[in-house]
Every structure is written in C-alpha cells, then in structure tokens.
C-alpha cells in the first residue's frame, strides 16, 4: 500500500499534562479520513501536532517519507493546510483578502492575477462569490467556516486538515461542504483529515475513521468496522442503535450509560 501520511509514536502534552500518548497511523493518498471521539479526547490537539502548530514532544510525522518536524514552516505550509474551527479577526478584513492569505506559500510580494483568479475559482466552488467584499467578522458562523475552508483550498496543499468544518453549518450546508471536500479529495488526489462530531456524517463520507479516547486511538478502519454499538458504548458511554443504510452504518443514540 502507498502511504501519504504517517504518524509515528506521537507524544504531546501541555505543561507535562499528557494529552496524546503514542499515536500511530498511516493514511493512503487520496483518502478522506475522519477523527471522531468525545470532547477533550485530543482530536484538535492531534491535528495541531500534525501541522506543527504545536510541537510534539516525541515521535515523527512523515509526508511522502519526509519528516514534517524537520521542515521549515513555509515548506510545511506547502504540504499541509489547516482549517481552524473558528477565527476572530481584530481588524476588519474582507473575505477576498482573507482567502488570498492562503496563497502566501506560493506568492511573490506583488501577488499576481493568477493568484487572484484562484481565489475567485474557490469562491465560486464554495458558492460564496457574493461575499467576496464583505467584512469577515460580519459573516455568520457558517459563512466564516466556508471562508476558512476556502483559504485552505487556495493553499493547494497535498494534505488538508480540518477541525470540525461543519460545526456551524445547517444540514444542507453540511452536505454541501462534505461533498466539496470529497470531490476535491478525488479530483486533486489530496488527503483530507478532519475532526468530526457527527458520526453519521463521518460514516457517510469517510474512507477511514479513526476513533480516539483520552489521547489514544482505540479503533481505526472503514466505517463499518469502527462505528459499532460496542465501540460507541465503550468510547462515548452511550447505548446506540446501529443500522446499515446504503452500506454505511448509521447510528441513533438511545441513552447514556451512567456511572
């Protein structure tokens, strides 16, 4: 199997407080992978470690066998893009300029028509062209999330990391964003890794699911093998009914497991 991204023995903690303990995984090219798990299980932290926003205390991250932890930041940005869950800007910036920032790793000081054209393409792809001149801070949470996704898309990295990209979106826009990401993964043959809370959305769109609990990976594989009633009971402490709909497991949470 070809491997695009490989995480080896990642160890990370804030102030000696261990958060990630020996995280290992391998991801093939052109795959959509989701990370699921309860609040505080370390999904966001893992994504930040991969993108070197925080530096892991141990282990290595390899993209095409090259170690990310030893690259300079601008090179990392050419391989990896990151969509934060939300973002506040102190000074007003319009949507166009916000997205144009994603071109930084490829751009000269003057910028070029080509870079601006790429921004327009992505704006059209996400169907937010009409927001181009609006102030980022005055958008709704969902619109902001789309802009942040757009910024990562113009970065044209081979691996895209997304932290709960659908958390502020209504169900129509959830499907919209997931479809766009799936299309980009197939067309540009990139790898997308996203943290997600909605297990059904994860099940519908993922090639692989990684399930985390307390900083460790407890299950990984295709949706059918990971989204099971047993895993959900032990990881989330929830009794759930699992049905298969068009070959994908769908869950219905029934009740909490107390104590």
């Amino acid at each position: 199997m070809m491997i695009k991204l490989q995480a080896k023995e990642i160890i990370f903690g804030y102030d000696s407080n261990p958060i990630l303990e020996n995280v290992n995984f391998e991801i093939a090219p052109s795959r959509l992978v989701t990370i699921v798990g309860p609040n505080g299980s370390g999904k966001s932290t893992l994504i930040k470690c991969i993108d070197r926003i925080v530096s892991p205390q141990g282990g290595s991250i390899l993209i095409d066998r090259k170690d990310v932890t030893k690259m300079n930041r601008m090179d990392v940005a050419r391989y990896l893009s990151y969509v934060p869950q939300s973002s506040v800007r102190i000074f007003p910036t319009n949507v166009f300029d916000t997205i144009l920032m994603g071109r930084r790793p490829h751009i000269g000081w003057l910028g070029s028509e080509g870079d601006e054209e790429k921004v327009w393409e992505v704006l059209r792809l996400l169907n937010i062209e009409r927001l181009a001149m609006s102030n980022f801070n005055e958008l709704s949470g969902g619109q902001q999330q789309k802009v942040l996704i757009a910024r990562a898309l113009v970065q044209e990295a081979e691996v895209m990391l997304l932290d709960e990209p659908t958390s502020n979106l209504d169900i129509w826009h959830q499907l919209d964003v997931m479809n766009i990401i799936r299309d980009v993964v197939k067309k540009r043959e990139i790898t997308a890794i996203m943290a997600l809370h909605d297990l059904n959305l994860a099940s519908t769109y993922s090639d692989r699911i990684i399930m985390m609990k307390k900083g460790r990976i407890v299950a990984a594989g295709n949706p059918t093998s990971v989204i099971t009633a047993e895993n959900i009971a032990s990881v989330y402490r929830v009794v759930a009914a699992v049905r298969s709909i068009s070959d994908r497991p769908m869950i219905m949470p029934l009740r909490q497991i107390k104590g």
Partner: protein
Amino acid sequence: MMGYRAFFHGKPDAGSSRSKRAGKKSGIELAHERFKFIRLFFVLSIAALLVLLTGFIITLGPLNISVADAYSALLARFWPDYFHVETLTSRVVWNIRFPRIVGGIMAGFGLGICGCVMQAVLKNPLASPFTLGITAGAQFGISIAAVIGVSIFGGPYFIIGNAFVCALFCSLFIIALAAIKGATSENLVLAGIAVNYFFTAISQLLKYFASDEQLRLMTNWGMGDLAAFSWANSRLLLVIFVICFPLLMSKSWDLNIMTAGDEAAKSIGVDAEKTRIFIMIVTSLLVATIVCFMGTIAFVGLVAPHMARMVIGGDHRFLIPASGVLGGLVLMSADAVGMNMIAPTIIPTGIMTSIVGVPFFMYLMMKGKRKEFWT
C-alpha cells in the same frame, strides 16, 4: 484593464458566473477591481497632498512667501538654471521653514509605520510606540548616555545606540507580557503607562545628578521638539529610514496573516514568534532614532494607522505606506497649527499632537469594548 467608467459604474449583481464564461467580469469582481483602484488611488493622493501641503505650510510665517516662490526656492537648489528666487526667500525656506517640515514628515512617517506594524504583530489596536512606553524607554537611554558621558565614546552613535538598546528592552518586555495568556490589549497599554511613568521618573531623577554639561546633552538630545531637527541630523535619520522601511514592507504579507492569529499564521507558513520579534527590533531602532532627533511625539503612531485602515482595509502592502504618509500629514499639520495659531508664540509639537491624539485614544478605548474596530 478596466476603464475608469467601469470602476465606478459596475453594478454589483451576484452570482453571474455566466458572464464570466463570456469573458466579462461579474459584478462582484468589478466591485473588487474598484476596491483595489480606490486603495491605490488613496495612497497616491495622500502622497500628493503631502507635497501640496508642504508648499502651503512654507508660506506661513512672518516673511511673506507665495506658494510659487516656495516651490521655486525648493527646486532652485536642484535646477538653478530654471528657477530663480531672492536670496532671503531661499534662506528662510531652506534654513528655517523647510527643515522643520521635513523633520515633521520624517517623524510622522516613522511613527505611523511603527504604529501600524506594532498593532498587527501584537493584534492590539491600542498599540503604538508611545502607548506601549517604547518612546519613554528610548528617552531613558538618552539620559543614561548623557550621564555616562558621550565624550568617552563620542558622537551621536553612542546616544542613539543607547536609546535603541533601552527601547528594545521595552519592546521585548511588551512581547513577553503579550505572550502570557490573558494579557488583554488593555492590560498591555496599562503596562505601557507604568513603563512610561517609571522611565520618565528615572530620567528626571538623573537630571538632579547631572552636571551642566550633561544637562545640556540631555536637552539637546530627545527633550526637544521639531525645532531640534537640522539638516545635519537628517542624513543619519534618512539612512535608518532607508534600511527600516523596506524591511517592514517586505513583511507585508506576513503581517496580513498575523492579524488572523498565531495559529492561522503558523498553518500558512509564517513563524509568528520570529516575525513579532523581528518587527519589534526594527521598530525599536526607528523609534529610538526619532526620539533622539525630535523628542517624544505622542499619539501620531496610534492615530495614523487607524485612519488608513478605515479607508483601505487590512492589506499591509498599502497600509504601511498609507500609515506613514498620514502620520507625516498629521504631524506636519499639527505642527503648522501650533506654530501659527497664536504666533509669535510657538506651541511645541508634542503638545499639539497630544491635544489631537488624546480624545481619539479615548474614543478607541470606548469602542474597544465592542471588540471590533472600524467596521
């Protein structure tokens, strides 16, 4: 390229990617073209205004000089064959009025760009060389240099060097403070005020122990106002500007990105910590030099970037020069008013800028509660 009419008459009609395929630009794309045009137009027109205002301010004063004579006197230096003016006019323009204006423009420009980039790297709309206590640090450096004795090390380099080291120390203190979680922009400014008081007090204290010679040095360096500026000073100032301005401009993109926060900056390839330290070192050098030659001038560095941002938005490729030019405009106008309002009494430059700046600063503080500036 769009025609002039298209810039101003393109109607925004959303979602017309149809017209795109036909090779025409959609409404929103035209709006964007228009925005870019206005941004460039604004920077060029304030620069032009600076030149015009220079000519006008030269005419103010006891000796009557017409605007035409003012420009002639300036140009006659370079093309004596084409422009002629009386010797007296030429002397007044070149020895009295023009140096003061150039000093004002340089100080305003330097403080404006410093305020602009400091606000970006600290993500703090209240940041400026004065409000964070960096000018006070530089001032302190001058006093120390005077007391230690310039004669030993000789020349302006020692004084400027000392002012730079002390300003840098203040900057690093501010960076360290900003790095602590929960240090809000208000807290940083409070720290700046504390630093301001502390260094001013020590500078005053040093005066008690200073000999006459040392006192003279202290007042010659840094306690003055624009009147202290002379052509002899301008060369060193110009050299430092020519080094610092391109350095800051080269970081324009990184500054744009840093206003989105350190995490976003890192993920787009900008090393936030390094950029922040680099910017604070360069601004410390600029501020120290300005304080040495022209004394403490408050609030220009705060006001100018906000004025620029209101009109042209957040792209530092345009914002840095616009802040600089606006700083120059504000300072030179404030000074012209101070010189001529109740002539022959001259109100020092620093007093004039504070009178304009303090109400504005208060306004920003109030507005800051809503967590959003200029929208």
